[in-house]
């Protein structure tokens, strides 16, 4: 009799975990997609990364109740996934990034010439970002997400908040240097 009761309890727990997971998908799937896209710059790759993130959560759903900040926790998971994917994949050519941006960037209020110039500028910026050291690059990319504070970025990267600030300062200087003098590579 006890066994039957515990089985029913387990089933109820499983049901609750599935509902919680479904709520997490509804709430954070788009945020995770944007984080993934900012690194991978490819729609299907970013969506795959989001799916993999929730599959990992599904595997460890028993720990869902212990997580304090689900948003930061999920961003941390997807961040590790996309960095791992990017590391394993070959370096994407710059032309691919520009073509993908041309496909996804909003084109309202821009004529063809302005749009081409904007795309070229974006491509130049992205190429400069790629030249930054890994630590600075990660911070500057995460700081572009307005919903992430420096404390949350520190939590995602597993460093202190002061470290995030100093890295961000360095990253901005280096980025400006690279954009002003493209040949200066440190």
């Amino acid at each position, binding site marked *: 009799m006890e066994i*039957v009761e515990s*089985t029913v309890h387990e089933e109820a727990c499983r049901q609750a975990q599935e509902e919680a997971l479904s709520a997490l998908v509804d709430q954070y799937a788009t945020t995770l997609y944007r984080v993934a*896209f900012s690194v991978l710059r490819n729609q299907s790759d970013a969506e795959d990364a989001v799916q993999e993130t*929730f*599959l990992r959560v599904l595997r460890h759903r028993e720990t869902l109740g212990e997580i304090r900040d689900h948003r930061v926790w999920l961003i941390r998971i997807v961040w590790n996934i996309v960095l791992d994917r990017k590391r394993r994949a070959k370096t994407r050519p710059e032309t691919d990034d520009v073509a993908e*941006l041309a496909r*996804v960037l909003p084109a309202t209020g821009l004529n063809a010439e302005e749009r081409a110039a904007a795309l070229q*500028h974006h491509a130049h910026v992205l190429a400069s970002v790629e030249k930054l050291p890994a630590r600075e690059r990660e911070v500057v990319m995460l700081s*572009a997400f307005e919903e992430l504070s420096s404390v949350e970025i520190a939590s995602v990267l597993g460093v202190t908040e002061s470290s995030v600030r100093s890295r961000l300062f360095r990253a901005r*200087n280096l980025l400006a240097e690279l954009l002003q003098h493209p040949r200066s590579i440190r």
Partner: protein
Amino acid sequence: MSASFQNEFDRDRVAAEAEKTLRLIATLPAPKGIETRVKGRLQAVPSRPYVIEWPFSSRDGSGWMRGSGIRAAAAAAIVLIVAGGGWGVYSRTHVAQAPTALVAPAAQGGASGFTGANATRKPQTVVGPVVPTQSTPAQKTNSAKIAPALHRKSRHQSIAVKTVPATPAVQ
């Protein structure tokens, strides 16, 4: 002073423009229906981990293997089988004892050190030409001196006599 200030101003402006690009990418909307697709993928994953189940256990968890006593007995039986098998192997295995001393084979052949190595077939060797030795007058006198001395020795004493062959006269 003003140049450095201008430089710093330019640097900040360039950095701000670069960040604007990153912010633009960061605010791109996600494709429609991503939540539905993710949920569909999650539902496609089996909820229970796939494991090999005991064929006689029931899905509701009330199978006979759930009883703690029976489980203990089954565990004890497995332990006994494993231990018995190990003992059976151990008891049938005879480890050869290491020899305490090594017996060297008896040396064959003469003092030259060459032997037939117990070969079953030995090739016939051609007997070489014998060169007649011509003893010199000095050797003859030596042998005449040695012969009586040998006869004077006791019989029990073993004396190795090595005669030096005469130098063959090669013509």
